Structure formats: structure tokens, C-alpha cells
């Protein structure tokens, strides 16, 4: 395939996938919402869950974004060094966002900072935001790319916080920080929430890990047994706060809690918290060297 044709083909695919992610929740999130709906005993909270499912059905039927806030779009790319369109990928993803904005359609959510004008096409300086990871030499698929599309609305972006604790605060301080964020700002972020926690050296590494944490499939666990146990402790504890859907109180607060960590400087405990709303619009797609694709996040996706 010549490069121009290949470029167009991948732009078409990523525009379609970006639009699709705005209209359909991933399978793991749908399953979890159904489980929480079944476990809800407050009639008002149950009625809110019913509105959510009614909304998702209407979005699918009418082919529309299930939430009007289609986010400032982010891509997390993990690509092998021999993926044929690696150098073109940033341009392709930017063009795909422009196309999806018209075709899906998506809300115009890029205000150029300092210029204070909405660009009208969801692109601008560093928009869409793209994070890169190079697949290691030991990984299979050196000629493949796995791309996560994530659209978080303003509501669930607002609670995000990071700070650097002194070592004396310990993991106890990490837990307290998570509770402070969720108890104070959680109600505005459209609970039940997916809470991502990053533990690292400094604010930016902890914050980025907390975002990567909410891109993990729901219910997956940190490989370290203590970290995995802490994920469960935080999940159960936050659920006992009982925010309920939309913060009107109920039996659940979270879809889950995911922790990501790095080795860190001995003098600091950087902690970041990112929050995803119940309409957690995350999509994962694998692109082969021949531009064949497989959607990993949505069981019944057709593009």
C-alpha cells in the first residue's frame, strides 16, 4: 500500500473509532454498571441508574455521543519501532479528531489558551494530547500499535489532584489523600467513579500514572500483592462512604480503584489522583502492520 493510501486508511479508521468510543461504553464498564444497578437498594439511586441505561440505549439507537461532553481527546499510543506509520501517527490522529468532530459529531472542546477562542475542531496546540510508549524489544508485535482513545469530560477532570508527601506520611497519607479528593469533589464528577491513583516521586509522574491507572481494564489488579490489597481496601472503603450515583447517596461510590506505581526517590511520596466518570469512554484498538485492526475494549464493536 502506498503511504498516502495507508495514511488515509488509518485516518478513516481512527476517526470512526474515536466517534464510536464517544457513543458506546466499553464492555467491562457496562458489566460493572449492571452489577451496581442490581445491588442498589435506594429507590432514587436505582432510578438514576435506570436513566443511565435508558440514555445508553438511546445513544446507541440514535447513533449519538452518550454524554455531550466528549472531552479534550487524549490518545495513549504503544507502538513497536517497526510500525509502518509511526512517524505519521501524530498527524493521522489529529486529522482523525478533526473528522470525528464533524462526523460523530463531537462537542467543540478545544479553547486555545491565552487566545481564549474555541478552535471549533477539537485540535489546537498540543490537542489532541498524545502520550507515547515504545514497545520493548521483548514484546511481540514490533510492527503493531495499540492505541487507547480516552475522552474525559470537564466534570471528572476537575477533581484531579497531585501532591508530594513526606515519607513520614506513608501509604496512610496516600489513602487519606484519595479519600479527601473523592469525599469533597466526587459528587460533581458523575459517580460511580473509576479512581486512579499514582504513587511515584513527583507530581507529574504520579499524575500521569494515575491517569494510566484508569485506562486499565476494570477489576485488573496491580501485580504487587500489597498494592492489589490496597486497591481493594480503597474500593471497599470508598463504597462505604456511599456517594451513590450522582452523589445522591447509595450503596456504591466507585466502579473501581486502580493503583499504578514506579520506584521512587527515598525522600518523597508523590501521589496523584485521576477520576473517571460512570460514562467512562475508553477505547482500545490494535492496529497491525497491514492496518488490519482489532477492537479490544468493546465486545461488539463494528466500525
Amino acid at each position, binding site marked *: 500500500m502506498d503511504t498516502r493510501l495507508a495514511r488515509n486508511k488509518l485516518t478513516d479508521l481512527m476517526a470512526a473509532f474515536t466517534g464510536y468510543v464517544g457513543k458506546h461504553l466499553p464492555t467491562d464498564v457496562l458489566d460493572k454498571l449492571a452489577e451496581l444497578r442490581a445491588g442498589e437498594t435506594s429507590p432514587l439511586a436505582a432510578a438514576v441508574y435506570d436513566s443511565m441505561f435508558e440514555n445508553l440505549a438511546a445513544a446507541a439507537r440514535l447513533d449519538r455521543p452518550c454524554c455531550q461532553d466528549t472531552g479534550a481527546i487524549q490518545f495513549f499510543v504503544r507502538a513497536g519501532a517497526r510500525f509502518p506509520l509511526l512517524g505519521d501517527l501524530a498527524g493521522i490522529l489529529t486529522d482523525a479528531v478533526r473528522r470525528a468532530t464533524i462526523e460523530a459529531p463531537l462537542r467543540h472542546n478545544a479553547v486555545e489558551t491565552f487566545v481564549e477562542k474555541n478552535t471549533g475542531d477539537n485540535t489546537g496546540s498540543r490537542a489532541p494530547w498524545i502520550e507515547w510508549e515504545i514497545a520493548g524489544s521483548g514484546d511481540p508485535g514490533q510492527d503493531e500499535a495499540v492505541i487507547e482513545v480516552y475522552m474525559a469530560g470537564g466534570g471528572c477532570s476537575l477533581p484531579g489532584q497531585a501532591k508530594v508527601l513526606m515519607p513520614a506520611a506513608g501509604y496512610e497519607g496516600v489513602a487519606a489523600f484519595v479519600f479527601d479528593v473523592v469525599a469533597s469533589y466526587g459528587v460533581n464528577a458523575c459517580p460511580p467513579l473509576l479512581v486512579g491513583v499514582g504513587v511515584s516521586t513527583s507530581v507529574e509522574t504520579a499524575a500521569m500514572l494515575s491517569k494510566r491507572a484508569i485506562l486499565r481494564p476494570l477489576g485488573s489488579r496491580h501485580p504487587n500483592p500489597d498494592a492489589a490489597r490496597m486497591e481493594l481496601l480503597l474500593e471497599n472503603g470508598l463504597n462505604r462512604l456511599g456517594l451513590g450515583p450522582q452523589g*445522591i447517596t447509595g450503596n456504591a461510590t466507585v466502579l473501581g480503584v486502580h493503583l499504578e506505581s514506579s520506584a521512587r526517590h527515598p525522600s518523597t511520596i508523590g501521589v496523584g489522583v485521576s477520576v473517571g466518570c460512570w460514562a467512562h469512554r475508553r477505547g482500545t484498538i490494535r492496529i497491525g502492520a497491514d492496518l488490519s485492526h482489532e477492537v479490544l475494549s468493546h465486545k461488539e464493536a463494528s466500525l
Partner: protein
Amino acid sequence: MKRILTTPIRDDDIEDLRVGDVVYLNGRIVTCRDVGHRRLIELGRALPVDLRGLAIFHAGPIVAGDGDRWRMISVGPTTSMRMEAYEDRFIAQTGVKLIVGKGGMGEKTAAACARHKALHAVFPGGCAVLAATEVQDIESVHWEDLGMPEALWVCRVKEFGPLIVSIDATGANLFAANRARFEEKKAPLVEEIGRQVRFIK
């Protein structure tokens, strides 16, 4: 049976409603969020729509052109707390009777709801297509220079809801009460978890 409010809303239509009640709206609701509020309150610019007896929606929609008209595609509530700095003066100046958004609002808005007989209500967040299907028509748009999310979209709605009353006309505040409850539960939970995560030894 559904309790339905119809615009223009009068004081005695809403005085008996209490936090936690569920209502629906017929009539006119206008989207108005951050910059719409800022223009009226901080910049002193007159709103291009007379809101007396009407409803506002803290929301920034996705709309699509349809010939010379507009069609509502997706319109869910945004975080109402962002408008807390302005809302008491906004209620006093405009005579708006129903504010729809998500999450709660603060003490100043609750006081203004009591003084001027108004409500804040929550439309379930993220349920934007459900809301769009309850918009019958976009009658007009104002301040389009603000872009799609911030412009004022004047919508005619039918049985728009569910709307969960979060501040009633006595000034009672559902989310303030909930928040106090969450804060109260927080400390013992944090202590209990803290005891189990002392991994630094």
C-alpha cells in the same frame, strides 16, 4: 404520577417541593454556564433572553445544523458548583425560577433560592441523549461568539427530566447535607485503612 412544572413558573408552583422530590419540566429552558454568568454579573452585559419565570440549564450541548435551524444532538448537565460565585446575583437579577445542573450548589445559592423562591435540581449527569430527546425544538441561539458549549441555546422541552430537587425554595440543600455525611464517615474509614497499609517498616 409525574409532577410537571410548566414555564412561566410561579412561586406557588414550587413552594411545596422539597429536596429529593422528582419533577419534570414543560416549556422553555435556556443553556447558560460559565461565561454566560460572567458576562451578566462581572461584565454587566444584559442577557439577550428574558429569564423571568423560566429555567436555565448548566449545560454545553452538541448541536447540529439542520437547514436554517438547529437540532439538539446531546445535552447533559455540567458541574453547577462552577457557577456558585455568580448564581445568587444571577437569580436576583433575572428572576429565573429553576436551575438545572449536576452536583450541588453552595450556601449563597441556597440563600437566594429561599429569598427569591427558586429551585436547583439535578438532571442525571451523563444522560445527555435522554435529555436531547426531551428537547422538542431549539427556538433560538444567542452569544454564538462564545462557541458551541457556552452559547445560550433556547430550548422548548416536554417532560424534561427526571429532575431531582437539590435546593428547594426554603433553602434546604440536599448536597450540603450529603457532603457533611460523607465527611463524617471519612475519618474512621481512613484510619481503618491506614492501619492496614503500613508498608513502610
